[in-house]
C-alpha cells in the first residue's frame, strides 16, 4: 500500500483510539472508537484482506457499536467527573502501559520485510478464498461459533431482562398503597 495512505490511516487510527481513552463523554468515546474501527477496516483492505475489512466495518461499526450506542442511551450516561482515588494505581498503570508499548514496539519491529516483498496469490483475501478456508479447514470452529452466538443471545436476554413487576396486591400491602 502507498506510504501516504498508511501514514494517514495510522495517524487517524492512533488519534482516534487515543480519543477513546481520553474523552469524557462516552458518546464521543464511541464515535472515536467507530472511527478507529473504520480505519482499521481500511487497513485490512489495504492489506489485501478485502472481505475481512468490509466485514469488520459491517459487523463492528454496523452492529456492535450500535449496541454500545443503545446501551449508552439506555443508561443515559453523561460525561464522567474528574477521576479521583486510586491515583497511585493509575500512576503505576500508566508506567506499565508505557513499558508494554515499548516492549511491543521492540518486539514487533523485529520483522523487516516490506509489504511488497511477499506476493500473494490472485484472489487472496477475496470472499472465495475466505470461504474456502472457513468452510474447509475451519468448518467445525465455524459451526461452533453459531452455537456461541446463540448462547450469547440467550444469555444476554436472560441477564438484561427486567424482573417481572410485582403487583401491589401480590406484594406486601403497604399502608396507603394504591391497589
Amino acid at each position, binding site marked *: 500500500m502507498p506510504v501516504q495512505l498508511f501514514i494517514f490511516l495510522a495517524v487517524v487510527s492512533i488519534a482516534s483510539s487515543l480519543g477513546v481513552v481520553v474523552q469524557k463523554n462516552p458518546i464521543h468515546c464511541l464515535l472515536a472508537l467507530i472511527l478507529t474501527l473504520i480505519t482499521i477496516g481500511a487497513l485490512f483492505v489495504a492489506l489485501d484482506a478485502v472481505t475481512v475489512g468490509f466485514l469488520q466495518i459491517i459487523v463492528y461499526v454496523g452492529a456492535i457499536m450500535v449496541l454500545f450506542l443503545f446501551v449508552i442511551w439506555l443508561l443515559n450516561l453523561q460525561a464522567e467527573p474528574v477521576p479521583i482515588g486510586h491515583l497511585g*494505581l493509575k500512576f503505576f498503570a500508566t508506567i506499565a502501559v508505557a513499558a508494554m508499548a515499548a516492549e*511491543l514496539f521492540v518486539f514487533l519491529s523485529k520483522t523487516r520485510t516490506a509489504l511488497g516483498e511477499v506476493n500473494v496469490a490472485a484472489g487472496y483475501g477475496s470472499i472465495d478464498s475466505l470461504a474456502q478456508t472457513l468452510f474447509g479447514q475451519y468448518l467445525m470452529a465455524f459451526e461452533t461459533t453459531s452455537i456461541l452466538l446463540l448462547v450469547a443471545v440467550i444469555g444476554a436476554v436472560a441477564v438484561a431482562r427486567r424482573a417481572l413487576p410485582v403487583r401491589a396486591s401480590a406484594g406486601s400491602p403497604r399502608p396507603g398503597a394504591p391497589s
Partner: protein
Amino acid sequence: MMAHFSALGFILLFPALGFLFNLFLGARRGRGSVNIIGPGVIFAAFAIALIAFIRLLRLPSDSVLTVTLWPWIHAGRFQADFALQMDALSALMTLIVTGVGALIHLYSVGYMAHDDDFARYFAYLNLFELSMLILVLANNLLLMFMGWEGVGLCSYLLISFWYTNPNNAYAGRKAFIVNRIGDAGFLLGMFTLVAALGAHGIWTLNFSALRGNVGLLGPATATIVAVLLFVGATGKSAQIPLYVWLPDAMAGPTPVSALIHAATMVTAGVYMVARMHFLYMLAPTAMELVATIGALTAIYAASIALVQLDIKKVLAYSTISQLGYMFLGVGVGAFSAGIFHVMTHAFFKALLFLCAGSVIHALDGEQDMTKMGGLRKHLPITYATMLIATLAISALPPFAGFFSKDQILESAYNSGHRGLWCLGIITAAMTSFYMFRLIFLTFHGDSRVEADKVHHIHESPRTMTIPLLVLAGLAIIGGWIGLPEGVMWGDKIGAFLAPSVGEFVPIVHGSYAMLTGVSLGLAIFGIILAWYFYLVAPGMPYLIAYQLQSGYNVLFNKYYVDELYNTVVTRPLFWVSTFVLGRLIDSFMIDGLVNGAGLTVETGGQLSRRLETGNVQQYAFVYVLGVLAIVAYYLYLVTH
C-alpha cells in the same frame, strides 16, 4: 455334594420385602395390611424353607443346597460372596427360625393389637427374621457374622422398643454393649482364622473350605480361634460371664422375648459352635472350656431362677440355664444333642414365654407372680399349654425336653465328664422346681390379683391362642424324632445331623436306665418340693428365706454380679472415658489440633484476602504486569 438351589434366595427375599413394606408403608397402610404382611412373609419363608428341606431329604444325606446371590467382598485375594448354603444343620435351624418365628409373628398380631407402633414393631421383627436367616444360611463365616450383627441390632431395637421408658432404653443399651464385647472376640477369632489360613494360601471363610483346610491350623491356633469365637458365643447366647444382658432384655415385648431371647437368637452361639465343630474338634481345651462354662451357667442361672418373683425373669434365667445345657452338650462333643435341645427348647421355651405373655396380657402388664394366682379358671388354654411346656422343660417323658436333655446329660456322662453331669442333674432338679413354682404361683392357689385388674382378666384372642396350641403340640411330640438308641426308630435327628456336625463318640458307657432314672427322679423330686412349698405349706418359702437370709439375698440379687460389673468394669470405664479420653485427648489434643488447623487457615485467609480489593482495574493491573513479564521473556528469547 453341592446342589444348586436358587429358591434359597427367596427365603431371605420375603422377610426383606416385609421389612421394607412395614418400615416405609406400614404406618400409612394401617393395621390391616401390616397384620397380613408381617406374619405373611414369614409364613411364606417357612413354606419355602419346607420345600428346600424336603428337597434336601430327597438328596443324599451329605448333600448341601447352595446359591450364590452376588459377589460380596473381593478384597485382594480374600473373597466372600453373598452366598447361601443349606445343609442338615442349616435346614433344621431355618425351619425352627421360620416356623417358630411365624407362630410368634401371628401371636404378635394379637399381642400388639393395642399398640400404635405396630408397623415399626413388625418391621423390626421381619428384619430380625432376615438377619437370623442370613445367619443360619450363610455359607461363609463373614456373612454369618453379618447376620450375627443384624440380630444383635434387632435385639437392641426390640428390647428398647418402648423407648419412652428409660429403663427399656437402658436395657437395650446394655444388651448391645455386652454383645459388642462378645462380638469383639468373634471378630478377633475371624481375623486370626483368616490370617492363619492365609498363611497357607487359603483366602476364604467358606465353611466347606474351612472344613477341608482346618487341618492346616496348629492345635494352638485352633484353640485360640475356637476360644475367641466362643467368647462371641457367650455374648450372644448369654453365658457366663456375659449373660447379664438377657434378664434385662425382658424389658421388650413378650413375643420378642419368646422369639429372640428364647427361641432363636440366643441359640446362635450354639449354632455357631456346631457349625464350626470341625474346628472345636481340633481344640479339646476349648471344648472343655465350652462344656464347663455351659454346665456352670446352667446351674448358676437355675439357682437364681429359684427365687425370682418376676415371671419373665424366671423364664429368662431358665433360658440362660437351658442354653448352658446346650453348650454342655456341644462342649462334650454331642453337637447333634445340643442342636436337638436347641430345637425342643425353641418349642417349649417360646411356648412358655408366649403363655407368660398371655398371662401378662390378661393381667394388663402385671409381671409379679406374687400378684397372681388362681388364674387357671380364667385362662384355661394358657394354663393347659403352659403346663405342657413346663412338663417339657422339666424333662418328663414323653415331652420334648426329656429326650433332648437326656441326650445331653447322657453324652456328658459318657464323654467322661462326671462332674459336669452332676451339675447337670442338679440343675434338672432345680429346673423342675422353679418351673412348677412358677406354675403354682401363677395358676393355682387363691388369687392375689390386685382389685383393679380382676375385672378384665380374659383369655387371649384367637391369634394368640392358636400359636400356643401349635407350640404345645410341638412341645409334646417335638422330641420324638430323637429317641434313645434302639428304642423304636432311634435317634433320627442325630442321623440327620451327622453329615454336618458329626457323630458323638462315647468314651464310657453308663447304663441308660440308671442315668435317665436319676435325672427323672430328681426332676420329680423338684416338682414335689415345689408342690409342697407353694400349695401345701405356702408359708414355708418365707420361713426358709428368713432362716437363710444371707443366701437368699445373694440369690435374689443375682449374686450381685451386676453390682460387681458396675464397680469393676463400668465405673473405671466411665472414669477413663470422662477424664482421660474425654477431657485430655478429645477436648485438649484433638480439638486443639482441629481448631489450630482452622485457625491457621483462617488467619491465612484474613491476610491473603486483602489482595481482593474488588477493584477490577487492580486485577487488570496485575494481569498486565504478568503480560509484561511474559513479553519480556520472549523478547529475551528473540534477542539472544
